[in-house]
């Protein structure tokens, strides 16, 4: 933190605020809060990554050698929860905090104190999750989806997880209300809705999704909590409840949740690709409508995660066709990104490399998603490593690659210093190669029938698992290089010009110096 504090101290041209740790605890500045979100996200990314390495170490060879099965289950559960709620989501909220006010010409977020609260709810929630490892019985070992009836039977670690989810949900909802209000009410004069940068549009849609579904998840875990301690039987068949009901409620939240993760990533990529193609985004209006369509469709496809629970044939057919329909707006977006690059004057700096990596890998993940949407195939593939490979292609190569693209893209603006281009490109290639080494082979494992969330496996799966585990260690080490690049940039990077990317044309590049002063756009610019 101190490294970050130092670099921000010299921005501080007319801010009157406490110094040291109190500056960060009491800050209401969107840039400070964005920075805290990003560092929090990175540290959670490291914690969740270590858990992933525990999983991959155990799976390096068949048999049980490093951890016992209980602890393995806790690792898969916490890895999922921490990466989704602790790493990916806060990363994009960090981008939103830094970028939205600067991109729409607003002085700050609509509710700066609320913004401070949204962030400071996160560390206690993360502490609860990690602390649950140390209570009797350990952390919840039920999978990140927290399915009943296991959740009703778990030890006190489950209660900590439930409270962590409540707090994380609260943080997301408050943050979303703030973002929606900022985007709708605080745009600079002349900045109409259809002139907003694509990143702002994607966050507007994401924030609406969050307000709509995070409370549903909170409701689901509240029911679990009352089932555990207050004698209700929402999910207990012995009392007339139904565990499958939990799955329906969870996935009613869970499917929009995957778009909550993906849509801001679309937004970042929609900023980066035009900048390095030196062309405006192709089909801006169709991008807006496609993103909104994806968000709306996400509410009516949830049961494709649970084809095997025993639902009527008509329901399976409906969810299959509705799911396939999502490929249409997603295809529009991919087409538009490719069309933006078409005949553009392309250069391949690190942000663009990550954006193109996103484009290839995310589309591949989308294709395996289409495969899994088909009921008879899904019944074969359900809960195998094929599913694991699929969602890591959209979560890691989709959302995480977009986040890296965003960091490299905006780091010069935020810190006033250029990152080392050569190291950045090495980071990209290492990440890309090791990512595919981990997850591409998992398609084969899944098709051969290796089930997920099991610490042991048949010896015939050994070769691919070894390759996958080696890739995981490589990918982990590559992220230490990322940390080194960022810290080195902050400490001793070359000074960056106001507009280091000549194709970048949103307000933070055209109207603000690099680095931007602590308070920006106190008088709003007028957009023609």
């Amino acid at each position, binding site marked *: 933190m101190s490294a970050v504090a130092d670099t921000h101290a010299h921005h501080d041209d007319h801010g009157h605020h406490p110094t040291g740790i109190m500056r960060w605890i009491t800050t209401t500045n969107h840039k400070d809060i964005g920075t805290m979100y990003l560092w929090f996200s990175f540290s959670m990314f490291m914690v969740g990554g270590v858990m992933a390495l525990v999983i991959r170490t155990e799976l390096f060879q068949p048999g049980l050698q490093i951890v016992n099965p209980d602890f393995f289950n806790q690792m898969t559960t916490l890895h999922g929860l921490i990466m989704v709620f602790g790493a990916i989501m806060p990363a994009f909220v960090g981008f939103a905090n830094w970028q939205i006010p600067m991109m729409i010409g607003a002085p700050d977020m609509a509710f700066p104190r609320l913004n401070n609260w949204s962030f400071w709810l996160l560390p206690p929630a993360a502490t609860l999750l990690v602390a649950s490892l140390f209570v009797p019985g350990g952390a919840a070992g039920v999978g990140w989806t927290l399915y009943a009836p296991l959740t009703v039977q778990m030890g006190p670690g489950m209660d900590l997880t439930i409270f962590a989810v409540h707090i994380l949900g609260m943080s997301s909802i408050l943050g979303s209300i703030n973002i929606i209000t900022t985007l709708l*009410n605080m745009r600079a004069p002349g900045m109409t809705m259809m002139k907003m940068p694509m990143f702002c549009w994607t966050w507007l849609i994401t924030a609406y999704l969050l307000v709509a579904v995070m409370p549903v998840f909170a409701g689901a875990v*509240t029911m679990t909590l009352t089932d555990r301690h207050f004698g209700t039987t929402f999910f207990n068949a012995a009392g007339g409840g139904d565990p499958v009901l939990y799955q329906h409620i969870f996935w009613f939240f869970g499917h929009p949740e995957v778009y909550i993760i993906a849509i801001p990533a679309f937004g970042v990529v929609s900023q980066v690709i035009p900048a390095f193609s030196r062309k405006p985004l192709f089909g801006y209006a169709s991008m807006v409508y496609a993103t909104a369509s994806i968000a709306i469709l996400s509410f009516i496809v949830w049961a494709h995660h649970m084809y095997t629970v025993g639902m009527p044939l008509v329901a399976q057919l409906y969810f299959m066709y509705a799911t396939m329909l999502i490929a249409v707006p997603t295809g529009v977006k991919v087409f538009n990104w490719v069309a933006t690059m078409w005949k553009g004057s392309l250069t391949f700096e690190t942000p663009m490399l990550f954006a193109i990596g996103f484009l290839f890998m995310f589309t591949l993940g989308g294709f395996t998603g289409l495969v899994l949407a088909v009921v008879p195939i899904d019944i074969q593939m359900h809960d195998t490593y094929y599913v694991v490979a699929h969602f890591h292609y959209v979560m890691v190569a989709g959302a995480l690659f977009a986040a890296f693209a965003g960091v490299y893209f905006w780091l010069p603006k935020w810190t006033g210093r250029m990152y080392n281009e050569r190291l950045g490109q090495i980071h990209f290639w290492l990440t890309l190669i090791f990512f595919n080494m981990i997850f591409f082979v998992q398609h084969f494992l899944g098709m051969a029938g290796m089930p997920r969330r099991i610490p042991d496996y048949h010896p015939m799966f050994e070769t691919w698992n070894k390759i996958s585990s080696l890739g995981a260690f490589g990918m982990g080490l590559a992220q230490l290089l990322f940390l080194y690049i960022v810290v080195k940039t902050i400490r001793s990077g070359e000074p960056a010009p106001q507009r280091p990317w000549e194709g970048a044309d949103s307000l933070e590049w055209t109207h603000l110096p690099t680095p931007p002063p602590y308070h920006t756009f106190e008088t709003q610019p007028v957009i023609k």
Partner: protein
Amino acid sequence: MNLGNENRRLSRRLTIVAIGMFGFAFALVPFYNQICAALGVNSIEEKSEAPLNSQIDTSRTITIELDANAHNLPWRFKPMVSEVKVHPGELAMVEYEIVNVREAPVTGQAVPSYGPQNAGEYFKKIECFCFTHQTLAPGETRRMPVVFVVDPKLPKDVSTIAVSYTFFEVAGRGGKS
């Protein structure tokens, strides 16, 4: 209206939406139960409807005329109804009554005959008093069923089958069965 009020109003509305969606999660519980009931999935009891016989040929109706004789036996033997109408393939049951009017036990065996004669192979008896010897105590009255199906392969020109049972005394058995 200034920006601060505008922002507060919007945030209030969004908070209401969020609280509403929390309630919606709980509203999903009765909704789920209703959907399951409507679709007939997830009910704990087995459904109790009778298995459907898809082989009934409702386009034809066969008249079964029932007749009963006792050959040299002191029994009064008659069907409870003189005719029934059935569809080919349909399971049907008729009842006969015998009264032993002698002061001693008697054993008899019934033998069926059919008109037209070839209809016999299409008249499939599943349960019949004619399968076994019947022994009646002095003055005893007994009702006995015949459960049968008319084979749908019954030739098209047959619309009436006469079924006639004749009881013969089983010689030397007396009251012993």
